[in-house]
C-alpha cells in the first residue's frame, strides 16, 4: 500500500511509525475506537435491551447485540477521528491521538473505520434485526454527516449531535423487541438531555483548545459563559422529571424512582455549582458527576425493573 502524504511531514511520520512495536500499533488502533465512550454506549444499549425484554433477558441475544453496537461505536469513533484529524492536531487535548501524533496513517484509520462500521451494520442487519441496523445508520449519518461538519460552523452542533448520541439505548431496545415503544423514547430523552451538561462541561474546560481549532462550541461563541451556565442548569433540571418517567410508565419500580430523585438532585447540585462559578475545577467535577450519574441511573433502572 502506498504512503499517503497528506499534510503531515512524510519522513517524520515514517520515523515515528517505524519505532512503533506491534503492541503499540494495536494500542493505537484501540485508541481510535474511543474505548471509554464505547463502553458507555454499550452500557446504555444494554439498559435499553434489558428494559425492553418482556419475559426474562435473552443473554445470548444481549451479548450478540452489544457486540454489534460496540463494533458500530468503534467504527464511528474511528471515522470521526479520521475526518477531524486536522482539527485534533490543533488541540492539546487531542494532539496525542493516533492520527495527529502520526502513530497511524490516515488511510489506515479510514480502512479500519470503514471495515468496523460496515461489519457492524451487516452484523446488526443479519444477526440482530433490521430495525437496529436502521437505527445504526441514522447514528452514522447524524454523527458523521451532520454533527461533525457542523462543529466548525455553528454552536447548534451540540443539539444536532445530541440526536445520534441518544440513539444507543434505542438500538438496545429495538434489538430486544424488534420495534420501539414509548419506553425506548424515554431512554432516548434521558440520554439526549444528559449530553448537554456533560458536553458543555467539557467545552468549558477546553474552550481555549476549541477556540484554537475553530470549533464553535457555546463557550467559544460566548466567552463570558452566561448562556453556557444557563443551559447546564436548564438541561439538568429538565432531566430530573424525565428520569422519573420509567417508573410512571411501569418500566421500573419505586426504588429506582427514589434513586433517580437522589441522583438527579446530586447532578443538579454539581450543575448549579459549576454554573455559579464556571471554573475549570467545578466544570471537571460536573463532568465527573455526569459520567457517574448515567451508569448509576441505568443500572438502577434495570436492577429495579
Amino acid at each position, binding site marked *: 500500500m*502506498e*504512503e*499517503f*502524504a*497528506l499534510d503531515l511531514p*512524510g519522513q517524520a511520520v515514517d520515523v515515528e511509525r517505524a519505532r512503533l512495536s506491534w503492541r503499540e500499533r494495536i494500542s493505537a488502533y484501540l485508541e481510535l475506537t474511543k474505548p471509554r465512550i464505547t463502553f458507555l454506549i454499550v452500557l446504555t444499549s444494554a439498559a435499553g435491551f434489558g428494559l425492553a425484554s418482556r419475559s426474562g433477558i435473552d443473554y445470548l441475544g444481549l451479548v450478540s447485540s452489544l457486540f454489534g453496537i460496540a463494533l458500530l461505536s468503534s467504527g464511528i469513533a474511528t471515522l470521526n477521528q479520521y*475526518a477531524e484529524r486536522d482539527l485534533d492536531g490543533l488541540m492539546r487535548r487531542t494532539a496525542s491521538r493516533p492520527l495527529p501524533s502520526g502513530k497511524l496513517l*490516515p*488511510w489506515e484509520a*479510514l480502512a479500519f473505520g*470503514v471495515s468496523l462500521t*460496515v461489519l457492524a*451494520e*451487516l452484523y446488526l*442487519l*443479519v444477526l440482530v434485526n*433490521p*430495525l437496529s*441496523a*436502521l*437505527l445504526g*445508520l*441514522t447514528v*452514522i*449519518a*447524524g454523527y*458523521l*454527516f*451532520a454533527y461533525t*461538519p457542523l462543529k466548525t460552523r455553528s454552536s447548534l452542533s451540540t443539539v444536532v449531535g445530541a440526536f445520534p448520541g441518544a440513539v444507543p439505548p434505542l438500538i438496545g431496545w429495538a434489538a430486544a423487541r424488534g*420495534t*420501539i415503544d414509548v419506553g425506548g423514547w424515554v431512554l432516548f430523552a434521558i440520554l439526549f438531555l444528559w449530553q448537554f451538561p456533560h458536553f458543555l462541561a467539557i467545552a468549558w474546560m477546553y474552550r481555549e483548545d476549541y477556540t484554537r481549532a475553530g470549533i464553535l462550541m457555546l463557550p467559544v461563541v460566548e466567552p463570558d459563559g452566561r448562556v453556557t451556565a444557563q443551559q447546564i442548569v436548564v438541561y439538568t433540571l429538565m432531566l430530573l422529571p424525565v428520569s422519573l418517567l420509567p417508573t410512571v410508565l411501569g418500566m421500573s419500580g419505586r426504588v429506582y424512582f427514589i434513586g433517580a430523585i437522589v441522583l438527579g438532585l446530586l447532578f443538579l447540585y454539581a450543575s448549579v455549582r459549576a454554573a455559579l462559578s464556571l471554573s475549570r475545577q467545578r466544570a471537571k467535577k460536573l463532568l465527573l458527576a455526569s459520567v457517574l450519574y448515567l451508569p448509576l441511573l441505568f443500572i438502577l433502572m434495570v436492577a429495579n425493573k
Partner: protein
Amino acid sequence: MSKGLNRYAILVACATFFLIIAGALVTSNDAGLATSDWPLSNGQVFPKMVGNLFWEHGHRMVATTIGVLTIGLMFFVLFKESRSWVRKLGVCALVLVIAQGLLGGLTVKLMLPLAVSAAHATLAQLFFCTTISLAVFTSKSWIEAKPIQEEKGSLPLRYLCTVALVTILLQLVIGATLRHSATWDKHLPVELVLAHIGGALAVVMALGATSFTVLRRHRGEKYLTRPAMLASSLLVVQLFLGLAAYLTRLASPNDPQPLNPMISITVAHVACGALVFATTIVLTLRVFRVLPANELAVNLTARRHGAIEI
C-alpha cells in the same frame, strides 16, 4: 444560452418532483386500482373525485400536465438550443415521459403486477434525472464553468460520483420494489427490507465518501461543495424518514385502511429519496464539467511522485 429555456427546464423538473409525490400518494393510499379503466377514469375524462379516485385520477391529471410541459420542453430545446446532444436529450425526455405514461396504463390494466409497478416507479426517477440534467445543462453556471486544473487525490472524483449515483439508483429500484411488494395490510418481505437497509448502508458509504472528498479537495469551490453538502444533508433527513417510515409501516397491518402518519412519512421518504438522487446528479454532472477527464492519469503520475492525498 437562453435564460427562458433554463427557467422552463427548472419548472419542468420541479413539476416532475411534484408528480413523483402524486404517484407516491397513489401507492401509499393503495389507490392504484381506484379505477380499472385507462386512459379514461370510469369511462370519463373528468370523473367525480371521490374516495381513492381522488389520488389515482389526480395523479393522472398531474402526469398529463407534465406530459404537455415535456412536449413544450422538447420544442423549446429544439428551437433554442444549438448543442446537438442537449437537443437529443430533449427528445429523449419526451420519449421517456410517453413510455412512463404507457407503463402507468399497463400497471392499471394488468392489476398492479409487481414488476410493472416497480418499473413505473423506477422510470419516474429516470425521467426526473433527465429533467434535472436538462436544467443543469441549460444553466448559465454550466455554460460559464471553468475547468479546475489542480486535482489532487488517489481516487478520481468522477469515479466516486458515478459509484454514488449508480448506488442511489439501485437503492431507488429496491425501494420501489419494496413499496410495491406488499400493500399496507401485509407485512413487508424480510429479504427486501434487508436489501433496502443494506442498500442504505451502501449509499451512506458511497455518498459520504464522495461528499467528504469534494469538501476536502475543493474547499471554497461552491459550484461543487454546495450540491455535495446538500446531498449529504438530505441523506441524513432521508435516513431518519426511512426509520420513521419503517416504524409506522410495521404497525400499519393493524390499521383498517392506510392511515397517517404512515402515508405522509412514506411519501416524504420517497420524495426525499428523489431529492438525494437529484442533488447527486447535479454534483456528478458538475464534477464531470469542471474536473479534467484525464484526472486518473494525473493522479497516477502524482502517486509515482509520492504526493497523494485522500
